[in-house]
């Protein structure tokens, strides 16, 4: 029934080969792939994703520049220098200057600080509110859960940016109010995801079983379940950052950004709009480039994490 090409043809089989094979202990098991821990495995897969790794490296560099960039710059973020206003990029001013003679290069790194701060804070606050709300909802279950989720459903239907605009108009534009406004509406998505994950944990049969044995359940949850359920939450956080950065830029663009002389990328882009047609392209180009690159980096990193952390795709 098989015609496969044998390395040794049956005619050449030696007689002395017909003796029992000494039992190799566990030889059958060795073919199984060595099991890596969840995080190591995820990291291995993330590392294979070149785009996501590129995004990660870019973000690390960006943060380093945001922290240390301004230190190496001879210019101040806020000090005006009218004689050298509206200069194109040059050796002295790498990214040019704005209408008040401020160095765009320096302002871009300050903008990075603000934009990333807004994004990361929004993601963290969303995470904490979401963990508490979603955790309670999922853990309690029953009526509490259905009531809490009904609330979430209604809030989910709110047009977020409109509410954010409304809040910003009332509270006045500042860094704090931007973050507050973004998180007031933003935590809902996280709460939904956390609740889903909590329900999933609850449904694992051995969790219910281990409850009766008491001792080891917290260990099981920490060692086996938490890593698996953290995946979607981490991905959601990674994707919250770029959307918060975008929202901040959007608000700045509507005139609701933080006030001059400080600048976020969105404020810089907004300030550049009136002068873009007079040829001062660098005013818009650099902040826009960094907004786009940062969002791109976070998006590809989020996608990569999604693939890397998905237990279904483990191989």
């Amino acid at each position, binding site marked *: *029934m*098989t*015609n*496969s090409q044998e390395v040794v043809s049956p005619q050449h089989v030696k007689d002395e080969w017909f003796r029992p*094979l000494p039992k190799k202990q566990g*030889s*059958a*098991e060795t073919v199984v792939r060595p099991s890596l821990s969840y995080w190591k495995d995820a990291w291995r897969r993330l590392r294979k994703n070149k785009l996501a790794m590129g995004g990660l490296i870019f973000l690390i560099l960006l943060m380093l520049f945001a922290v240390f960039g301004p230190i190496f710059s001879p210019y101040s973020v806020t000090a005006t220098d009218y004689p050298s206003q509206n200069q194109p990029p040059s050796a002295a001013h790498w990214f040019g200057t704005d209408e008040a003679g401020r160095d765009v290069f320096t302002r871009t790194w300050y903008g990075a600080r603000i934009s990333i701060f807004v994004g990361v804070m929004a993601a963290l606050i969303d995470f904490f509110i979401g963990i508490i709300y979603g955790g309670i909802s999922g853990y309690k279950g029953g009526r509490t859960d259905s009531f809490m989720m009904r609330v979430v459903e209604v809030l989910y239907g709110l047009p977020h940016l409109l509410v954010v605009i409304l809040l910003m108009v009332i509270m006045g534009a500042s860094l704090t109010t931007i973050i507050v406004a973004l998180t007031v509406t933003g935590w809902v998505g996280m709460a939904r995801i956390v609740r889903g994950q909590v329900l999933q944990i609850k449904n694992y049969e051995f969790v219910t079983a281990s409850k009766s044995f008491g001792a080891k359940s917290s260990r099981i949850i920490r060692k086996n379940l938490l890593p698996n359920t953290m995946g979607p939450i981490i991905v959601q956080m990674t994707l919250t950052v770029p959307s918060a950065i975008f929202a901040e830029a959007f608000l700045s663009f509507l005139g609701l950004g933080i006030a001059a002389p400080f600048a976020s990328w969105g404020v810089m882009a907004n300030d550049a709009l009136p002068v873009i047609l007079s040829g001062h392209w660098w005013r818009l180009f650099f902040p826009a480039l960094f907004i786009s690159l940062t969002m791109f980096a976070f998006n590809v990193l989020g996608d990569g994490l999604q693939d890397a952390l998905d237990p279904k795709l483990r*191989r």
Partner: protein
Amino acid sequence: MNEHQLDHAKEQIKERVDEVDKSLPVGTSGVQKNRKKSKKVRSDVKVLQVNNLQVSFRTYGGEVEAVRGVSFDLHQGETLAIVGESGCGKSVTSNAIMGLIPKPAGIIKNGRVLFKGKELTNMSKPQLRKIQGVDISMIFQDPMTALNPTLTIGEQLTEGLRTHKKVSKQDAKQKAIEMLELVGIPNPTERLKQFPHQFSGGMRQRIVIAIALICEPELLIADEPTTALDVTIQAQILELFEEIQQKTDISIILITHDLGVVAKIADRIAVMYAGKIVEIGDKRAIFYTPEHPYTKGLLNSVPRLDLVEEELQPIEGTPPDLFSPPQGCPFTARCPYAMEVCDHVYPSTTTKSDTHAVDCWLQDERAKVLQELS
């Protein structure tokens, strides 16, 4: 199927559905019950000839040799069961016959599949489509996912018929109603307008079978058709298969890991391991005089009513990694009778009778001498 046969079949099936078979479809009770069927004269017409079929998949980790030289024939009206653990290549074999190997990841590296003398492996896709669903049909494992949730049962039943045979909408509908009756679904006329989620699992599997049979194929490939079903529903579906086969003389390839199912409806059994058929024979030979240690292991791992006192013995270990299949017999590492030769060379086929053949070094004269000595 003519009118008369159809009516008769309908009646019989109603009876069957009424008296639900409570007995578990395991062990030899099934064998004895169906002994009369095994005596059925074997047709000389070969519907399907598979010759040294080799299928590989390219994955990120390398090339997986899923099927490594499989050969068998299938006669008209015969049921061949392909048995083996998951990952042994049985589903890949059936997909290859059906022309459903996903390209470009999957490649048929070698071998021929002849359906009534026509070579299928090098056929163009449009040509193949004239055979798929018309001459060869397939039933999938999970009836909950095999039906499209957004189309009505009627649409899914008739679309194959309307694509392949130029049938009017009315005639197609009539035929669909007949098929639903045949597979034992009450109120077929109203049921046609319903969606899959309005049916239970067993009912859905009946619908899947009806869809597979509506173009009156000559070969039916059933990939684990009862695995996802309750035991009582399993029995009913298996009886439906027998019923249909008696009426239509259709040939069936049954892919399963469940020896109980095999005992119930198979005529012949092919045991697959690591991409190869290690033993093939008629049902009685495989159940009563198994030769390959793997076949024996499989039988020992299944509850049998005639061997009450013996304990169930699972086969220890796991099948080999098909990224780099072993040169010798793939079962060596798990085989209680393994010899040095097994590690070096894959055994050639030993013919035990017209219908029984096995790939094992224990069949070699030299091995027998050695065993008697020890």
